[in-house]
């Protein structure tokens, strides 16, 4: 018997072969599963493991409408309809459908669909879901839609510069959108999961991770939309009457710093910001464009002099109608009545530059008729520390301008420069800075930080109410504040208005400003002026502070009087008629 014919031996051979084959498999499996483990895990995960960033929903912006709260900026998912011309089979039929559903001409659509040498043409943008589905249900080859989130503004241009917009990169630009981008934007979430071939996450994987996105906070503004709308209308009419191309106006609550309305013209539609050619239009000029404010500075100068105790409200002085400082002459630009005895009230009601300069002279211990270092320093202290000029207010707006206040000890011709600053030349401030400082001198002496945000509402429902922030108390004494209100009431009483105010029932006060415009190379234009007005309306205490700015009106007369003052008057009437100004004695 040969060895191979022995059954036992044959079995052993078979057994050996099986063991060998098993060993080959085992070694191969060991190589694949142990030695090459990491490589194959990575290869498998690159196909199966998907990681997605979950985009958070941007917070919406709301505003007051009387006692209601209404949304003024919302999010909307819209669609871009596109086509791959190489895949479109019947461009005529597709074009007909598009024209019938979306408007436009068949020819235009056909031209796009027949574009050679491209695989992507945009047929229409910003389609809503119904419009998109109307097209896509035809299932035309090569026609598709991609989604994109847009900010939408139901009120169109209302408060456009104050709100700003969200740019193509999804970031807030200008206004509230820029200043509160972090709060509005929210925090992205993350989904890491094993998915099937269609990208659907499979639940049975212990390594799946889901970090939900946290939506941005909703923002409730202090703005009242009805007041905002009326302010914009009045500003528009006022600018047309003054033949001015641009201007700003704002209404502030002097007892809290809350901005109730803030308007700028010209304006734009934030839904179509890409169509704007001059990016200056995006700026909230009331906040980001400082100017030499002119005589609206005089109430601040008078308040500082009264608070320093260097003059009293009933002080009278001899005004020469011209001062010579550093070989330059300080004169009055409005009707001053010539040289003579004047009161502190006259400095405001007659808008005496020479009177304001005389107050600066009195701010030094020496008094007299010279501007000196001590006077400059004291005025600088009031301008920058009490009235906070030359520094940003911190309002929730993009690109806030700090303005400029010259230092009292640096530079040349300081006496002349400082003589100019007391009537609003040689320095710069924004209408907002002026409104905040003016509020402080008429509300009893408290400087409230201007603010536009009333509440932040987190997505979990947590409401953070912003309280008024006092940046300085004792700006001027309560008595000085009372005196200033009286002096400003007298300014109004002596002025002529198209519609008179019922001054027995309401307290109205204010001051015009006509400011020369600096030339880029130095000096001032002879025939270009900006008009300003800062004033208040209320009962026993000011309830609203109003600032108006009109850039380069082209009608005769002083810009502050003929251009800005009528707008102020209309705003005061609007507030009395529609927004419940509390009468005196209540």
């Amino acid at each position, binding site marked *: 018997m040969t060895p191979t014919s022995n059954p036992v031996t044959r079995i052993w051979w078979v057994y050996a072969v099986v063991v060998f084959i098993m060993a080959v498999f085992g070694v191969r499996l060991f190589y694949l599963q142990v030695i090459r483990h990491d490589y194959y895990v990575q290869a498998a995960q690159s196909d199966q493991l998907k990681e997605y960033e979950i985009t958070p929903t941007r917070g919406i912006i709301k505003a007051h409408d009387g006692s209601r709260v209404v*949304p003024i900026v919302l999010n*909307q998912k819209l669609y871009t309809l596109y086509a791959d011309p190489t895949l479109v089979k019947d461009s005529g039929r597709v074009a007909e459908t598009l024209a019938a559903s979306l408007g436009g001409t068949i020819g235009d659509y056909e031209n796009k669909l027949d574009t050679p040498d491209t695989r992507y043409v945009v047929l229409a943008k910003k389609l809503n879901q119904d419009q998109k589905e109307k097209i896509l249900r035809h299932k035309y080859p090569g026609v598709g839609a991609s989604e994109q989130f847009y900010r939408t503004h*139901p009120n169109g241009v209302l408060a456009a510069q104050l709100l700003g917009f969200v740019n193509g990169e999804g970031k807030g630009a200008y206004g509230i959108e820029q200043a509160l981008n972090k709060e509005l934007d929210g925090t992205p979430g993350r989904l890491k999961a094993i998915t*099937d071939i269609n990208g659907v996450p499979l*639940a*049975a994987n212990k390594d799946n991770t889901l970090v939900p996105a946290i939506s941005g906070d909703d923002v409730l503004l202090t703005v009242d939309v009805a007041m905002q709308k009326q302010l914009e209308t009045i500003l528009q009419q006022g600018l047309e009457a003054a033949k001015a191309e641009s201007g700003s106006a704002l209404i502030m609550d002097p007892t809290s710093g809350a901005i109730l309305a803030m308007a700028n013209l010209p304006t734009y539609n934030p839904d179509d910001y890409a169509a704007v050619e001059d990016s200056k239009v995006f700026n909230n000029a009331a906040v980001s464009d400082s100017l030499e404010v002119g005589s609206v500075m005089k109430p601040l100068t008078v308040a500082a002099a009264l608070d320093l105790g260097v003059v009293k409200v009933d002080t009278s002085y001899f005004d020469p109608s011209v001062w010579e400082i550093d070989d330059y002459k300080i004169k009055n630009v409005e009707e001053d009545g010539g040289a003579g005895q004047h009161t502190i009230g006259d400095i405001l009601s007659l808008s005496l530059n020479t009177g304001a300069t005389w107050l600066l002279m009195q701010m030094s211990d020496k008094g007299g008729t010279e501007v000196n270092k001590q006077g400059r320093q004291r005025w600088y202290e009031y301008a920058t520390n009490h009235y906070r000029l030359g520094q940003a207010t911190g309002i929730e707006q993009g690109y806030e301008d700090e303005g400029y206040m010259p230092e009292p000890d640096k530079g040349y011709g300081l006496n002349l420069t400082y003589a100019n600053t007391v009537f609003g030349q040689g320095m710069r401030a924004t209408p907002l800075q002026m409104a905040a400082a003016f509020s402080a001198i008429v509300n009893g002496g408290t400087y409230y930080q201007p603010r536009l945000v009333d509440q932040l509402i987190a997505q979990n429902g947590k409401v953070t109410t912003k309280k008024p922030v006092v940046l300085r108390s004792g700006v001027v004494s309560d008595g000085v504040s009372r005196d200033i209100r009286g002096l400003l009431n007298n300014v109004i009483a002596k002025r002529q208005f198209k519609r*008179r105010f*019922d001054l027995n*029932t309401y307290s109205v006060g204010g001051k015009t400003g006509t400011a020369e415009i600096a030339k880029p190379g130095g000096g001032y234009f002879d025939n270009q002026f900006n008009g300003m007005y800062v004033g208040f309306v209320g009962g026993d205490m000011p309830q609203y502070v109003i600032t108006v700015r009109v850039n380069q009106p082209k009608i005769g007369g002083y810009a502050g009087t003929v251009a800005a003052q009528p707008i102020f008057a209309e705003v005061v009437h609007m507030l009395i008629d529609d927004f419940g100004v509390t009468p005196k004695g209540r």
Partner: protein
Amino acid sequence: MTYSSSLALGRKGNYPSRGVSGVAFNTREHAFGPISNSIILIVLACCLGLLYLAQVTKTNAFGYQINSLQQEQTRLNERHADLEVASARLQALDRVQNSEVAKSLVSVAPTATVQ
């Protein structure tokens, strides 16, 4: 049953009968060999594997259900957002101002100021 008969019965199954080898009796004891054990283990492992696969498949099927529900939730949220936008547009000041109702309102002279 008597004691002796019970002993006899008890012995019947446990002790060899007369003339039967005790050693042979021991080799007849039933036990699984290593191959049987291996097969049983493999079958058990296969059963466990099948059970695991069934559970994984079932759980993954829930993934599709979750995905479908999430899509529905997203769709409803978008619909809600669209309705909010439509509502806000309908209440927009310009639209209200230009509405037929607003146009038919009669202007009243304000009483708070002297004309």
